[in-house]
């Protein structure tokens, strides 16, 4: 007991939550194993991902050093910068694959919408924590406006996956702040009413196509329906114990498209089967519960709201990705967190966990 306390205090001084860190490392390790298989044993790709992971870990540890108080003070500025950059993307953004998401900053390309995944919940937590809890109607209205502005800008790019994640991040802050259940139900109905104009005016053809194909994948077997059909075959043929690492026929015979990014879960399911999936989901659940525990111990409204939002958004990532590859949700382009290949999302995710560590490890200092 004594040794545990001392080691804990060492990590505490370094502002690292060792339990959370272990969960993350286990997940990422499992992710790297499957990425090796999904990428067709591509070592160069693994090295690139390794570098990104290194950067993401450094970002996480640096953010963990910043106290929640400082984070709170910086929230509005971060939000304004992010929003301005989103507007800039609309006008000067770089196009790729039919969407305008990147800002070319000379040295590197930057995706402001990715930053908003954290800036929006921070801003809302700042705003709601500075007022009465549960928030009054006027506050709530302004909070929704703060949320909708960046969401619409991101949806316009168009980036349905990110706007979905930013929306849920914001809504979780509002939810945790204690909005009454009547209001939540009211908004749920309003939200459904909102989907109709969204379908008609905001969504691009390819997004509508994705939803329609999700409802009936057979309708477009050469195009987008192909992904879902092949993904379901991959998952289903995995069975209880899977076909074994590097032995997935669906993935290695190249039936599966985007198999190292958005569809990496299908490769995992094919090669490791249902038992492997239970292991993966347990690890995710471990990280989520640790996150909820951290927020329940947190001091200060800002920390609690923000922490809970980060954890629940992570949950949405998992649910949407696995839901889409298994054919119960439309293909919206959300990666499997900490496992899919790709740089920006992993940095944002680990930055979020850095905030959680900061919340947890600055607690005692605040108590003094």
């Amino acid at each position, binding site marked *: 007991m004594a040794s545990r306390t001392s080691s804990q205090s060492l990590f505490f001084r370094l502002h690292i939550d060792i339990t959370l860190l272990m969960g993350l490392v286990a997940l990422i390790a499992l992710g790297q194993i499957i990425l090796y298989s999904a990428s067709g044993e591509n070592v160069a790709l693994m090295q690139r991902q390794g570098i990104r992971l290194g950067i993401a870990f450094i970002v996480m540890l640096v953010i963990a050093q910043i106290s929640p108080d400082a984070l709170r003070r910086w929230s509005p500025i971060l939000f304004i910068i992010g929003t301005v950059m989103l507007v800039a993307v609309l006008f000067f953004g770089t196009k790729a694959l039919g969407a305008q998401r990147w800002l070319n900053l000379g040295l590197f390309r930057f995706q402001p919408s990715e930053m908003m995944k954290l800036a929006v919940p921070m801003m809302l937590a700042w705003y709601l924590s500075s007022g*009465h*809890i*549960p928030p009054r109607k006027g506050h709530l209205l302004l909070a929704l406006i703060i949320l909708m502005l960046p969401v619409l800008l991101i949806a316009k790019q168009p980036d349905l996956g990110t706007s979905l994640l930013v929306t849920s991040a914001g809504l979780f802050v509002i*939810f*945790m*702040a*204690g909005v009454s259940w009547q209001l939540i139900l009211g908004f749920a109905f309003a939200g459904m009413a909102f989907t109709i104009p969204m379908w008609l005016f905001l969504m691009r053809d390819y997004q509508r196509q994705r939803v329609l194909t999700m409802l009936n994948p057979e309708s477009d*077997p*050469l*195009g987008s329906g*192909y992904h879902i059909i092949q993904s*379901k*075959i*991959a*998952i*289903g*043929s*995995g*069975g*209880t114990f899977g076909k074994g690492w590097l032995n997935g*026929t*669906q993935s290695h*015979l*190249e*039936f599966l498209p985007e198999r190292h990014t958005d569809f990496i879960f299908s490769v995992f*399911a094919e090669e490791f*089967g*249902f038992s492997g*999936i*239970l292991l993966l*989901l347990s690890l*995710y*659940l471990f990280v*989520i*519960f640790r996150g*909820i525990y951290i*927020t*329940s111990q947190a001091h200060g*409204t800002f920390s*609690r709201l923000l922490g*809970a939002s980060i*954890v*629940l958004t992570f*949950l949405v990532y*998992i*649910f949407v990705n*696995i*839901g889409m590859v*298994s054919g*119960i949700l439309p293909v919206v382009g959300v990666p499997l967190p900490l496992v899919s290949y790709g740089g920006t999302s992993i940095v944002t995710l680990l930055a979020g966990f850095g905030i959680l560590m900061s919340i947890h490890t600055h607690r005692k200092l605040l108590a003094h």
Partner: protein
Amino acid sequence: MTERQHLKDHFIEQRIFQNRSIVAIFFTLVLFGILIFRLYILQITNHEHFTTLSQNNRVSVQAIPPTRGLIYDRNGIILAENLPSYTLQIIPEQTTDIDGLINDLSLLVDIREIDIKKFKKEVRRKRRFEGIPLRFRLNDEEVAIISVNLHRLPGVEIKAQLSRFYPYGTETAHVVGYVGRINEKELKRLPITNYSGTNHTGKLGIEKSYEALLHGQVGYQKVETNVRGRVQRVLERSNPTPGDDLYLNLDIKLQQVAIEAFEGKRGALVAINPENGHILSMVSMPDYDANLFVNGIDSKSYNALNQSWERPLFNRTVLGSYPPGSTIKPFFALAGLESNTIQLDHQVFCPGFYRLKGKAHKYRDWKKWGHGKTDIEKSIVQSCDVFYYDLAFKLGIDKMHKFMTLFGFGKRSGIDILGERSGLMPSKKWKKRVHNQVWFPGETVIAGIGQGYVLVTPLQLALGTATLANGGHYFQPQLVSAIQRKSDIIPRQVIPQMIRQIPILRQENWDEIYHGMTEVIHGARGTARRLNKPGMRYKIAGKTGTAQVFSVAQDASYKEDELEERLKDHALFMAFAPAKNPKIAIAVVIENGGHGGSVAAPIAGKVIAAHLSQFSDEELKRPAQKLPEKTPGQTAPPADPDNSSSTPVYSLKQAQHEGHNHG
């Protein structure tokens, strides 16, 4: 806020947060429950179903490529068609040793290095169960040999396919272009689903610029295959939509006449209908057989074509930039008249050279001893240089630039094949921008006879001639006249696009130029009087030109036969006919041909004669029809005035736009 309230708030807050945290945990468990339930259904309950799909009876989707649209000339003669041919393909999934298999196959039929290279590239991008072509156009014997051995060649199949064929492959190579196998760059650009069954795409000419229309929409069939990949049965089929057929304004017979008239000389010819900008003929010599490129040309033949100093692959009509020489003179004379710089009675004395005030440099006339007193008509008929040195100096380069730009010089014409050059009509601003130098008066002087910086493409020269001939109606040149969509009963006409009407100051000015140009052929001292044949049913108006390829030192005389062939002058000729009611405007450039009148003009004469032979005397004499006053919109007269009244009118932009949408 008091301390008590604060504590109370704090307490309420804590409680709310705890409640919500419990809800969040519940929410998490529900979502994970849904996922686990879903995955259980897929992996445990339906495991066998998916295993079957995955391993034994694979349902696969095969793309059915659409039939590419055909291309016809103006008289319905087919220029690009699809002929049945046999393709040898391999399905990588069904073979373990691809290299060994290719080796076995090469013992049976001829397989070139390039075939293997292209095949390997495609293996990487296609799905494993899809057949990948190794050899196109197998002959009957080859088909027989492989069929006999098919049992010991797993994964090999012979597929009957349609292959593009150009019956006039050499005559139309520079216009119609050709299709070729899709390369990696194109792969990124082309819509992947629509091209999933397609091996070829337009690479050049009409085939490239109208790709979106010619290609059509892919169809597919869902088939059940056994473990060897052989199709067991077709479950579902959706037919492809064939590409649109195109009708060109080009007259292939006229094209052949023109090519024959070239007698193997290098150069280019463009013939345009001045009434609507339709391209009647477009020749770039030497030519090559477009059919060579359809299924991949071997590197030896390609290098031979590509490295030849005669540059047969180079489309001179739109890419060749030549000094226009004296063919530019009628335009400048008109510029002088219409800008009131000179009047109809203007005369210049030509002593055989021209000198700028205070400068010693002599600008020589082609006639050493000079033309003496020269008026506008004589300046055109005998092509007096001094007259135009003087006129250019009076006009100044910027006025010349402004006027010539109206006729399309120095600008891309917007013709419906890609990659044309813009030529060059210099101005002071241009020189400042490009060379960062001031303009010298001497440069104006030589620009006056179409030398110096001035460069035109043969297409521009023909288009300028057409615009001059029809009284200043500048049309966008057009190769495609109509588009036949399979769902339409009759083809949709492409509307001629008149870009501008050049303002006319005095009609007499234009008539004077026409008169002078007619005398070039029909006058006793005209530089192209050899075209004047007794009993001609019409008159031709034209202008010869001889453009220096390099400049000759001051006062040094030069003898043509001493020069190397490639340094000889370019011969040029521009003309329209009939002079009073022009139905054809033409430009001819013969590289290193020597004199325009003796080399280029006879070719134009033959093409004009061939084209006008289809008109009756009545039609030739009918006064020029009134052309529209403004750029026509959607209601403009359709391409062919004769059978237009009932056909739907269609604009090219619209057509290409639609093509992209359904592509």
